[in-house]
């Protein structure tokens, strides 16, 4: 099969338990290459858990998971080391990915934090931490990007950042999954929106 045509991620009959509680039940999902998929669902319906399954961080108790990486997951809580500065945090990520320190600095400039790069992460405001987390996308260049309500906390000036990030991934042929409770925004950002209901993916949603 041509690589462009094989799906970026494919879940079949996935059952997931978290700490012995049933969260996902017989979930099927295909994320096509190059697509931006929106995902909505009630609180506690398992959206975050589903993203973790897509990132192969959680192993289902049943079902199959096939994902083509590299994957970047931006979760509810930014993955920053509080004692390190923003620059140190991103240089660490760059180092792990085998990339240059300059890439890390450039990514901070892209998200508008060049002047705050030497501030410790625990001395940054909520939105600044969110932005620094988003900067990881420019450092690791994922082909599957998973965003868990990352547009929250971004101010008006940086709201376009999410569009930009999605564009960057799409430009390189990668796919993205965007979880959000803001249905209008999801509809605007994505090609297709699905809803998570009763532990499985429901029919496509028309907003």
């Amino acid at each position, binding site marked *: 099969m041509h690589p462009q045509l094989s799906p970026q991620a494919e879940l079949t009959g996935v059952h997931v*338990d*978290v*700490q*012995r*509680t*049933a*969260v996902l*039940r017989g979930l099927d999902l295909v994320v096509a290459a190059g697509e931006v998929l929106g995902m909505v669902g*009630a*609180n*506690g*319906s*398992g959206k975050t858990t589903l993203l973790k399954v897509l990132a192969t961080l959680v*192993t289902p*108790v049943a079902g199959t998971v096939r994902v083509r990486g590299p994957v970047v997951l931006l979760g509810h809580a930014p993955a920053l080391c509080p004692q390190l500065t923003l620059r140190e945090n991103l240089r660490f990520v760059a180092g792990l990915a085998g990339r240059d320190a300059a890439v890390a600095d450039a990514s901070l400039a892209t998200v508008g934090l060049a002047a705050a790069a030497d501030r410790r992460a625990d001395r940054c405001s909520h939105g600044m931490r969110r932005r620094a987390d988003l900067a990881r996308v420019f450092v690791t260049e994922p082909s599957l990007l998973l965003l868990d309500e990352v547009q929250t906390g971004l101010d008006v000036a940086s709201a376009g950042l999410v569009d930009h990030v999605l564009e960057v991934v799409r430009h390189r042929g990668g796919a993205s999954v965007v979880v959000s409770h803001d249905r209008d925004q999801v509809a605007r950002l994505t090609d297709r929106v699905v809803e998570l209901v*009763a*532990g499985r993916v429901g029919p496509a949603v028309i907003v």
Partner: protein
Amino acid sequence: MTLFGRRLPIVAAVLLAVGLAAGLAAPPDRIQGNLQRLMYVHVPAAWLAYLGFVITFGASVAWWWRRKPGHDRLAAAAAEVGVFFTGLAIVLGSVWGKPVWGVWWTWDPRLVTTALMFFVYLGYLALRRATLDPQVRARRAAVFGVVAFVQVPIVHMSVLWWRSLHQPPTVLRPGDPTIDHSMLAALLMNLLAFTVVFTVFLRARMRLAAAHDEADATPGPLAGDAVSAPRLEGVTRDG
């Protein structure tokens, strides 16, 4: 099927009675006299503790290899029974030590290493108790079940590595056992009885664990179903 099974407990009881009778019938020790009869319970208890931990080790390795939940259950049950028999060996040893050595506890390497083995496997059980997710629990327990096993040869070899007060190997050693043959027969009888008791305990624990797992496997409610729409009432909402 009952927890303990029907026939095996009866067999165990009969064997225990025969074993104790054999222990009482065997000749008294030349030096220790009747006190020495504690050997017939102390030694099997210690050996079965070893057996428990050997099974935990083997089942943990098997779990790494095959990932069957049954292996995890076996490892857990064997560790529990092993801890029980370790405790028994320590208590019986102390009871024996008081008249023979004059103290309940001494800083003999075998005693100390046995106590540490007890702690290690208590830690194993604590780790299992603290982990809720069955998959995570099985993984971590399997890793620790293998690591912890280092302690068992240390206990066994301690009397050889450090010359000490405690009896050196008299039975479990290369060559002819340095023990009177009628004593040996009584010891073996008790060993058999204790082994059957061990099996009864192990099987009961396994069945209990399997029943628990089965109860967990029955589909519970979805976690998400606990969340409903807010009930916004009580205040008049007149924009």
